[in-house]
């Protein structure tokens, strides 16, 4: 009896431990592109990658609290800096894998269509979905755009905060909000369910970059670095581009300071 209980317990607990794959925690805006890239990677190299989604803030926080992550891909520098301060990153591996832009979207059947950030202050726009600014980079960029347009106070009470950027997209898709701010790649993935009314000027918010870095506590640092290298390679970049991501601003192999 005791033995069978022990065996059941072992079976329940073991699957996670025996998996040979690396665990990648990635900003959820990368979902479609990375899913494809990791599948390609598996066919080409035989190495499997387990993907974990969330907002960059959620993921950074999980890593800080000891989540067994090998590679972290954030949608902003802020989260990487926070982890860097805690000294748990392999700094030499830090590199930007892609860039993106912020767009204003409305439900496709929506009649009103605010065609600039400033127009969101209009009374006809009743609810605006953005990412929760502290943990969702897209929300932080949106707040910066509001500040720049001088409408931060005017829109405050209209804001619905998504816990990641895909939730913001979903609110707009379902028509539960009048408008939302998401990445161009998210809007693209939604097809004709949402309409892009304008691209936010890149000068009014921090640069939207996706930094990736190997986590120091990982036991599979080399395997993690191999996958990162693949993402920076021609094949990896082609895959990201297919989903609307723009290439990194500088030579991709160079680690950023």
């Amino acid at each position, binding site marked *: 009896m005791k033995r069978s209980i022990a065996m059941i317990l072992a079976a329940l607990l073991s699957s996670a431990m025996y998996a040979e794959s690396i665990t990648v925690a990635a900003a959820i805006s990368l979902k479609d592109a990375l899913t494809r890239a990791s599948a390609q990677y598996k066919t080409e190299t035989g190495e499997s990658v387990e993907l974990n989604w969330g*907002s960059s*803030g*959620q993921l*950074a*926080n999980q890593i*800080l609290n000891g989540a067994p992550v090998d590679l972290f891909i954030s949608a902003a520098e802020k989260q990487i800096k*926070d982890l860097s301060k805690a000294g748990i990153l392999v700094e030499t591996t830090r590199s930007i894998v892609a860039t993106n832009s912020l767009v204003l979207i409305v439900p496709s059947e929506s009649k009103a269509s605010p065609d600039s950030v400033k127009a969101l202050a209009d009374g006809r726009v009743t*609810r605006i979905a953005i990412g*929760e600014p*502290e*943990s969702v980079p897209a929300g932080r960029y949106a707040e910066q755009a509001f500040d720049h347009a001088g409408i931060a106070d005017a829109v*405050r*009470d209209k*804001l*619905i*905060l*998504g*816990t990641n950027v895909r939730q913001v997209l979903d*609110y707009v898709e*379902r*028509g*539960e*909000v009048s408008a939302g701010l998401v990445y161009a790649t998210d809007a693209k993935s939604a097809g004709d369910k949402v309409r892009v009314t304008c691209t936010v000027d890149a000068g009014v918010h921090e640069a939207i970059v996706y930094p990736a870095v190997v986590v120091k506590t990982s036991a599979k640092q080399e395997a993690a670095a191999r996958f990162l290298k693949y993402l920076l390679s021609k094949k990896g970049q082609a895959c990201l581009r297919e989903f609307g991501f723009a290439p990194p601003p500088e030579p991709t192999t160079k680690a950023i300071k």
Partner: protein
Amino acid sequence: MNSGLWLTLWLSLRISVSATLLALVVALPLAYINARSRYWGKSLLEGLIIVPMVLPPTVVGYLIIASLGVKGWLGQYLHQWFSYSILFRIEGAILAAAIVAMPLLYLPTRAAFAAIERDMEDVARVMGANRFQLFWHVSLPMATRGLLSGVMLAFARALGEFGATVMVFGIRMNQTTLPVSIYLDYEQGEMQKALAAVSLLCFVSLAITLLYNRSALSRQG
């Protein structure tokens, strides 16, 4: 305590008190009727009232959105005719908390009604009490204790509701409930900031549990 916490507490109280009242209005007559009579479909109705107790709150949230959201089977008409959607509104949070809290109010209340000795009610009836008088002056006072424990438990449950609330009410700027604010603080990596809300909820829940236990024990003794 900072002003943010007071606002959070105030919103939480508004939602949980309203939800408890809503649950009370629905559950009290049902508990009374179901403790007294048998009718076709009774078990199904009782099952529906009680099932949120074991159902994940996310399922409750899903069902509310699937019925009353802009694209919901009922919500699409509300949206078309009145431009109304339950999402992100306080009514949504109240409805979610009420559904989740109702079983805790319903069960002890029904048990209290069922435990009343029928003789007492028969005496009142013989003395000429009509149905409402019978309920108001005899049955209800005798079931007060069970009803009160139910109300306390339901209130505690409503105050702590997270899963359905976060789906239906969402996270609005400067408008979060206590449990949602704890989740947000954690997500932002600010465990310290959540401490006040965590302590408050622990304290209130413990106090209510102790009160409930005491009334349950004294009823036995």
